[in-house]
């Protein structure tokens, strides 16, 4: 098929995004094989992939749909715990780790996606800060509820209780998966960096293809002008829900990946602060800018580790960097300087492009 000018530009831009991820994977493999990868950084590889998926999926809600979400970690949590339950539940039936991981990711995505629908419905009636507070409330509810759930596997299948471990009535043969506030213990570490990179690539494939399609245009139309979108026959309900569900499902998969990298997982890990952290990735990477989300998620996950030299001061430094970046990136005089700088390199007129990638 003959590509249009925008089509070609888009193809190049998308290729850069995918290429960047693949290249990063190869580089890390090389550094690792020569023994230069510190163990703390190696431990960060899977979380980085999970956070990239979180950031890209949140960008779908915040950047493409234009709705602020303060509870994205809630979907991650749902994916994490349903993923853990599935992976442990299948332990005796499916031997192969990768297969169990795949099942965990899929179930995590489906469960989180279902809840994306549940949260998406009130989202239809609410706007702006009121919607943001509902997403925040949702995240807190999920955290609170998971903290009180006990799940175990007995000979006859899965058992769930809201009171305590004993009431599961598992007997001697059963295993307890989820212990209320203690979280999930004895999780199999099925996740790997390779699997993480594959999930990142699938996420990119889904989000980029969605954005540049009829559905993606409809979602952006709802964002840019709701009334105009309705006036050309677009269903606000349908496309808001589409964006919410896909975003939530991807966050669920990210949660499952994240959880299966640790032997213990607690619900507190996926609290308001995590939602905010991912939102920071999205905003610093550029709202609506998918490639920016990837870079911001990776850099900002590694940054606190890099700042370890400052020890006690590192989180303080992180906070100051965050404030300074926001202040400088929104300063008009600096913005002009930057455009002039870029223009000199391009030897053309300073042209502000709207970049979707």
């Amino acid at each position, binding site marked *: 098929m003959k590509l249009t*000018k925008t089509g070609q530009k888009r193809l190049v831009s998308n290729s850069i995004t995918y290429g960047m991820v693949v290249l990063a994977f190869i580089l890390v493999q090389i550094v690792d094989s020569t023994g230069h990868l510190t163990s703390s950084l190696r431990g960060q590889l899977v979380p980085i992939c999970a956070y990239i998926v979180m950031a890209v999926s949140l960008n779908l809600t915040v950047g493409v749909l234009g709705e602020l979400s303060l509870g994205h970690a809630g979907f991650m949590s749902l994916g994490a715990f349903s993923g853990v339950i599935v992976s442990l539940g299948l332990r005796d039936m499916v031997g192969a780790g990768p297969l169990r991981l795949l099942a965990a990711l899929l179930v995590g995505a489906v469960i989180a996606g279902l809840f994306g629908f549940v949260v998406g419905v009130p989202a239809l009636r609410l706007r702006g800060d009121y919607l943001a507070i509902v997403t925040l409330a949702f995240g807190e509810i999920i955290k609170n509820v998971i903290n009180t759930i006990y799940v175990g596997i007995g000979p006859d299948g899965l058992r769930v209780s809201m009171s305590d471990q004993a009431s599961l009535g598992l007997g001697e043969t059963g295993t307890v998966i989820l212990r209320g506030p203690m979280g999930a213990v004895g999780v199999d570490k099925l996740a790997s960096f390779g699997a993480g990179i594959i999930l990142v690539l699938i996420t990119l494939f889904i989000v980029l293809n969605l954005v540049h399609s*009829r559905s993606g245009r409809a979602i952006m139309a709802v964002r840019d*002008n709701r009334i105009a979108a309705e006036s050309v026959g677009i269903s606000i309900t349908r496309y808001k829900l589409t964006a919410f569900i896909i975003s939530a499902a991807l966050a669920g998969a990210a949660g499952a990946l994240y959880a299966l990298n640790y032997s213990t997982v607690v619900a507190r890990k996926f609290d308001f602060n995590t939602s905010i952290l991912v939102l920071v990735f999205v905003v610093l990477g550029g709202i609506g800018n998918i490639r920016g989300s990837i870079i911001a998620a990776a850099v900002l996950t590694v940054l606190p580790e890099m700042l370890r030299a400052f020890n006690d001061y590192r989180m303080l430094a992180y906070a100051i960097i965050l404030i300074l970046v926001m202040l400088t990136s929104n300063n008009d005089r600096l913005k002009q300087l930057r455009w002039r700088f870029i223009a000199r390199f391009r030897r053309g007129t300073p042209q502000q492009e709207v970049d979707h990638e």
Partner: protein
Amino acid sequence: MNNLAKMVPVPSRAIIPERDLGSTPILEVSHLGISFGGLNAVEDFNIIVGRTEIAGLIGPNGAGKTTVFNLLTKVYQPTRGAILLDGKDTAGMSTMQINQAGIARTFQNIRLFQALSVEDNVKIGLHNQFKYSTLNAILRLPRFWDAERKAHDQALELLSIFNMEHMANDTAGSLPYGAQRRLEIVRALATRPSLLLLDEPAAGMNPSETEALMANIIKIRDMFQIAIMLIEHDMRLVMGICEGIAVLNYGKIIAKGTPEEIQANPAVIEAYLGQKKEA
């Protein structure tokens, strides 16, 4: 409401072009009204628009003209009255359903998808013309490529009505004012309406642009064989291309007729002169 009273249709003294007499009028509005906080913004609004008519809706500022458009497109749900589109009742429909049923519009304060390209704006107008599912989009199945190619061709063809093909890749928000107004018309046309509502299409245009717009409105009517209803303050445009005109003042129709009749109507002259005195 008195259930015992026998309701009889009130003749609305409607006029439509003779060529449209044989077919159902595209729009029949009777006793349409809406109140905001006890105030009647539009009251007892009646109009019939022929299938290929170019109709005008004029009146002083604040007369309720845009409110009528908002009622017709269900941005506001009417408090009273009925709107028949192509003979079918539109009661209970949403803005989206109204568009799918055949009414498309532009807005007084331009409402483009600013951050998107001109072509994408038109393609969004084509949303219901070339359909494929989200799954098709994500997996890039043949259906996607086929529909996208057709949408691309169709978008450029529609843009060519106003000679705007070369702007296809520009960002909508970066276009000059006049071009933004024209793009809004193209986007509305893309939804294949049978009735096109234009809210002050010539606002902010210079005389030569307005001249071209008048020709283009007639061209669009002839090409697509649709009805067009427009709100406009530029009397040269209204008197030049509208076949039937309704005059609104304080939410009520004060006159209806051909351009000649309207120009000679004392009530219309007073409404406009009265406004001039205040200003």
